[in-house]
């Protein structure tokens, strides 16, 4: 309780600061757009974002309402051209400072969240004042209401979520394409420098054999033996290249056995636990395999480990891989390129990697590839809630009644003028109502069948839409 009042006090204090910020922001906006002092704009925006960031944190701790930051991702630092200059529009700059500033200015000015923040800032002191009685009498309710108000303006909108998702996806796509291109170049280099050169050498040796075979058969025979050895070496080399592209065991046996084979070839004593009911898609398998391979060789080469464990399991539709070793730890993605390489590979599948490597060890790396496995692996298909289940069963159980006896059969009785009325409702009514009631019964029965089929079919789609669409479709 005391804590709640503490938070209320903090919020009210923040309101006083907000007033200062409002005045400062008003002055900077005036200076920016009235006097052209544009350099004041970014600091003002940053100041406002500081206040909103603090508010989001306070709301989360006080009422548990999680408000994500709605801002578009910041622009990447400008990249120099080949001549070392930085281009912005049609202008070239010597230093990256001006283009970076321009990018930032554009980023802040075009982000709608900036203006929603400003609107929130203007209204927030008023809202707080209005809420003071409630906050003091019922802090629980008051804080929750305040949280909802903040969520309205400070939370992400569908548009901002989509925008950040699009920018995330395009970044990931670029990464994936880059990685792929680098792989291709590496393979091309391997084939060019290794295999191709060896084949040329074999061809030349065979040419020499052709010249020598009549004059000096003994020398020709020696050369032939050499050519045979060279072809064996070429094959060994090719095998190495193929292993780097897609290991044969992975293609033949799948992830589990490929990792087991990897464990056997490793210098470490590796225990492998695999719990996968089916094979994931080939690209997922390859990404997981190369990640494990890289981690094991890191553990042996840099970590000084003697033992390692690899655990591959499913977590619903996600693939989870844990690799731990007993080395001396201290692994840092910033230092080596191996770990960043893994992160890049996983990023293509929205995968994440958590590294726990205190100095002195042991090192544990957990990787999770979300939603890469088919849904049905998870075991529990999206279940219908009870009320929907009951509705569907009732519909199936009763729909026949209006459609067949009360609808179609009654119509047939009426057409052929059968005297019998039995329990057919329409025939007991006065003449002018009979046909409309029959038609109504047929339509009702058909609708009930359609509903019985459509409810479960829509349920899966609804569930999917719920997961895929952002909530809070405000402006």
């Amino acid at each position, binding site marked *: 309780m005391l804590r709640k009042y503490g938070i209320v006090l903090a919020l009210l204090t923040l309101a006083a600061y907000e007033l200062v910020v409002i005045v400062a922001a008003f002055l900077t906006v005036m200076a920016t757009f009235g006097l052209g002092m544009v350099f004041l704009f970014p600091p003002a925006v940053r100041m406002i974002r500081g206040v909103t960031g603090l508010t989001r944190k306070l709301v989360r701790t006080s009422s548990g309402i999680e408000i994500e930051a709605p801002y578009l991702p910041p622009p990447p630092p400008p990249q120099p051209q080949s001549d070392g200059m930085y281009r912005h529009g049609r202008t070239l700059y010597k230093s990256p400072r001006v283009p970076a500033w321009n990018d930032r200015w554009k980023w802040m000015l075009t982000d709608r969240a900036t203006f929603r923040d400003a609107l929130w800032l203007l209204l927030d002191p008023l809202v707080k004042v209005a809420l003071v009685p409630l906050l003091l009498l019922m802090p629980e309710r008051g804080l929750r209401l305040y949280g909802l108000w903040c969520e309205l303006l400070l939370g992400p909108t569908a548009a901002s979520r989509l925008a950040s998702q699009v920018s995330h996806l395009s970044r990931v796509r670029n990464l994936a394409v880059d990685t792929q291109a680098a792989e291709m170049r590496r393979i091309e280099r391997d084939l060019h420098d290794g295999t191709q050169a060896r084949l040329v050498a074999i061809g030349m040796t065979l040419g020499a054999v052709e010249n020598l075979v009549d004059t000096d058969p003994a020398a020709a025979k020696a050369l032939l033996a050499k050519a*045979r050895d060279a*072809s*064996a070496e070429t*094959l*060994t080399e090719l*095998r190495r290249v*193929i*292993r780097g592209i897609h290991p*044969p*065991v992975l*293609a*033949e*046996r799948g992830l589990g*056995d490929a990792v*087991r*084979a990897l464990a*056997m*070839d*490793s*210098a470490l004593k590796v225990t492998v636990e695999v719990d996968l009911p089916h094979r994931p898609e080939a690209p997922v398998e390859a990404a997981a395999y190369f990640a494990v391979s890289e981690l094991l060789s890191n553990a042996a080469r840099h970590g000084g480990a003697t033992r390692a464990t690899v655990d591959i399991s499913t977590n619903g539709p996600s693939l989870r891989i844990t690799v731990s070793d007993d080395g001396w730890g201290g692994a840092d993605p910033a230092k080596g390129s191996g770990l960043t390489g893994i992160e890049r590979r996983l990023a293509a599948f929205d995968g994440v990697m958590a590294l726990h490597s205190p100095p002195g060890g042991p090192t544990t790396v957990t990787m999770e590839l979300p939603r890469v496995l088919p849904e049905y692996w998870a075991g529990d298909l999206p279940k219908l809630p009870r009320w929907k289940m009951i509705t569907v069963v009732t519909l199936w159980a009763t729909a026949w009644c209006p459609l067949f006896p009360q609808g179609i059969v009654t119509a047939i009785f009426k057409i052929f003028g059968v005297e019998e009325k039995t329990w057919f409702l329409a025939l007991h009514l006065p003449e002018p109502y009979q046909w409309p009631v029959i038609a109504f019964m047929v339509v009702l029965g058909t609708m009930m069948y359609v509903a019985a089929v459509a409810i479960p079919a829509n349920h899966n789609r609804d569930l999917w839409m719920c997961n895929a669409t952002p909530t809070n479709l405000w402006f």
Partner: protein
Amino acid sequence: MNRVLVAEDLYLLRDGLVHLLQAHGFEVVAAVETGPELLRGLLELRPDVSIVDVRLPPTNTDEGLQAALAARKQVPGLPILVLSQHVEQLYARELLADGSGAIGYLLKDRVFNAEQFVDAVRRVAGGGTAMDPEVIAKLLASNATHEPLATLTPRERDVLEAMAEGRSNAAISQRLFLSESAVAKHTAGIFAKLGLAPSDDDNRRVLAVLAYLNSR
């Protein structure tokens, strides 16, 4: 002792193998190209030795290996020589797991040297083993730091390698330029260091060594 079955999906290689074997006095009773055909052939024809590619249609995964393992489960000790573009400890261990011998696992490159290849085929047909030097190297490498193996002298390691490939004392002495009695002395030393029961029978000796390496 010379009825052979060949299972290989690439026409050129299959044809080459058939010619090579016929030239060395084998009778090729069947040359098949898919996994199901291979399994049927192995079980119905019971060839004296079969040469099987790991990767076969229809799935182009490890059909050949699976067929070989399935056939040997029904007919223990059916002699099979498995060929592959790449060698894996995993597959070698699976092939050796039943401990009944008459098994080979070689890289396809070994076909280049016809004499040695035919020698390996004969060895497998006679109930022996023929393991690719690369498999043995990998097996030894992953056991390198273990206590008894680390105490072997370099010469003894050479002998162990050759022995694990499935060679007889005579063949080892030829390859390492040693007298047969010296080889016998080395093998006795190895067996003593590894704590294995000595045996005069070449095949059983090889299997003991491979089982030892496999168990680690």
